[in-house]
């Protein structure tokens, strides 16, 4: 409780307030920009957080993560072009509302539902993360290895539609983590004489390349597409009737979003889609959906913001990212010298509660900013691509270069820009690769430690019930979809 109060008191620190405010504004703006998602932004801004220190850095990234999901709904409603993938479901009914001249009402409901969903999930995060950490505190290397493998198995369902492609991308990410000096023997692996690779491949250039530069090349291939922009009336608070009509959708979707967010590798986009379906299923006005139902905006918006807090639960308590953006935030913590996991709750409780309180503040801030300035933020989406994307490249270059002041890192970013472009072209999502890269070191280290404990005897895992349960869950998650297909008699 003391740590919680101390964490809340940090919000009185003007520096923290400033970074949370800046993160919220940046999050809303970039969330509103079609093509620049929250994960792209956190990857792009990660280098700038290095001089901030751990607490402001994570508060800043957390605020961007919270606000970008809401920002995505602005362009989803006004332009039918979700600024963030998690706002895709919002466009189903938000855009028809805008076409009917109800853009302000849709944006108002989006802000209210997002804030409720976000705050709900942060409260769950505050309660659930320490409990999960307490369970995980008794874990040894074999359990951590099993947990990391379980986390990796979940990449099968993250990103693209093909489970095999997701697993390949995830395994490629794990391989990337082997670049550099082997911790046990000191042998250099895949460094090709490049000095800066000796300590391993840096997260920042890889993330900038995979997200920002890949998106630049994607945008180059879609230059002719133009969206129709709906007229925006004044943004207004939803009426009491609107809130009453949507309350069931908001609470149901907040619970769904938080639960899905907690599951490793399932993110806000999945949460919003499932919430949309469930909101429609439980609604009395099913026929309105797709034609401008306000519940169709409230449900997905509550869920995609609730998934943010949910995704932070395994990230902070276990060190297993719950989504692409939390994988980047995890990288941000590692860059700051902080290793997430259960020990954080005993060693650095202040850091954790600062994260929780900054996320709460970000949710309140975007409610205020969203209602007050949505019209201004919406104009951001009108920045022409020929001005916006070259600027993104220049920021990517300086972002990749600045931390180590090495041009080799810029080359790495550009190389991963091309790799990401071809991955997307052939149906591979970059998200599993990032999760694999973040978890790769943990997998190798804990496997080596486990085998040393077991005297190189793999059957030693059989005597560890928690590890075996996690292995069982891994197999279940990997084979479950195939078995279900067989049971249903599909080929």
């Amino acid at each position: 409780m003391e740590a919680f109060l101390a964490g809340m008191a940090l919000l009185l620190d003007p520096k923290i307030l400033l970074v949370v405010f800046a993160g919220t504004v940046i999050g809303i703006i970039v969330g509103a920009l079609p093509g620049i998602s929250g994960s792209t932004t956190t990857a792009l801004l990660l280098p700038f957080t290095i001089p901030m220190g751990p607490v402001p850095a994570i508060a800043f990234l957390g605020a961007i993560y919270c606000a970008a999901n809401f920002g995505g709904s602005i362009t989803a409603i006004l332009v039918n072009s979700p600024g963030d993938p998690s706002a895709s479901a919002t466009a189903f009914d938000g855009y028809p509302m805008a076409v009917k001249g109800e853009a302000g009402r849709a944006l108002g409901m989006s802000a209210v539902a997002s804030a409720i969903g976000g705050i709900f999930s942060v409260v769950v995060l505050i309660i659930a993360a320490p409990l999960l950490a307490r369970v995980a505190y008794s874990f040894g290397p074999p359990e951590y290895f099993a947990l990391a493998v379980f986390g990796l198995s979940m990449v099968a369902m993250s990103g693209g539609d093909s489970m095999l492609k997701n697993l390949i991308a995830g395994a490629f990410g794990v391989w990337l983590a082997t670049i550099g000096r082997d911790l046990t023997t000191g042998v250099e692996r895949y460094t090709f004489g490049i000095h800066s690779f000796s300590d391993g491949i840096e997260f920042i250039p890889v993330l900038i390349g995979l997200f920002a530069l890949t998106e630049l090349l994607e945008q180059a291939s879609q230059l002719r597409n133009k969206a129709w922009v709906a007229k925006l009336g004044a943004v207004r608070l939803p009426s009491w009737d609107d809130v009453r009509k949507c309350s069931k959708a908001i609470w149901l979707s907040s619970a769904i979003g938080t639960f899905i967010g907690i599951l490793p590798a399932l993110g806000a986009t999945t949460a919003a889609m499932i919430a949309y379906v469930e909101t429609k299923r439980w609604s009395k006005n099913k026929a309105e959906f797709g034609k401008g139902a306000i519940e169709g905006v409230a449900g997905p918006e509550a869920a995609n913001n609730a998934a943010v807090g949910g995704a932070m639960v395994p990230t902070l308590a276990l060190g297993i990212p719950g989504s692409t953006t939390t994988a980047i935030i995890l990288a941000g913590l590692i860059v700051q010298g902080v290793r997430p996991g259960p020990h954080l709750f005993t060693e650095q409780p202040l850091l954790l509660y600062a994260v929780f309180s900054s996320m709460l503040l970000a949710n309140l801030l975007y409610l205020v900013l969203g209602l007050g300035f949505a019209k201004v933020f919406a104009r951001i989406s009108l920045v022409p691509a020929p001005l916006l994307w070259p600027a993104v490249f220049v920021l990517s270059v300086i972002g990749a270069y600045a931390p180590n002041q090495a041009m080799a890192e810029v080359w790495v970013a550009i190389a991963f820009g091309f790799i990401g472009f071809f991955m997307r072209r052939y149906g591979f999502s970059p998200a599993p690769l990032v999760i694999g890269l973040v978890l790769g070191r943990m997998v190798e280290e804990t496997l080596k430690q486990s085998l040393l404990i077991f005297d190189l005897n793999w059957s030693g895992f059989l005597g560890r019930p928690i590890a075996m349960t996690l292995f069982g869950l891994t197999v279940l998650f990997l084979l479950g979809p195939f078995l279900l297909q067989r049971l249903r008699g599909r080929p």
Partner: protein
Amino acid sequence: MSSNRVAAAAVVAIAVALFAATFWFEQMPEGITRGFGAEAFPRLVLGTIVVLAVLLAFVSPTGEALPRIPPMVYYTSASLLAFMALVPVTGMLPAMFLFLAGLGYLWGERRHWLLLLNAGLLTVAIWAVFVKGFGVQLPHSFLFPS
């Protein structure tokens, strides 16, 4: 050949090349490796990748027909590489200015004043924040060595 098989073949080729590279890792005595050398884990991962790629080729052999890559992607890629080639000659900030104006023009913006204003403002902002603010040392160049 279907796109999935092309992708699977490329993945196998890369994984096999990386697997082969492990044979050039420095060898250490058994007392140091304790039965788990530096090459063991990469081999395990790359072997898994090969198995998954082979599965992809046989379980999902079809895959969508891919559209041609638009020429603008090649031009944009070339401009990224041109930027990298320009940095050692002009220095990073002038290269950024030229890139901002050049790619904007390539992508269809014809308001020259806007391109130059955007390029100028952003370059100055990067200089002010990173060079003056954070003390980042930009790489030396042929034209501006100091």
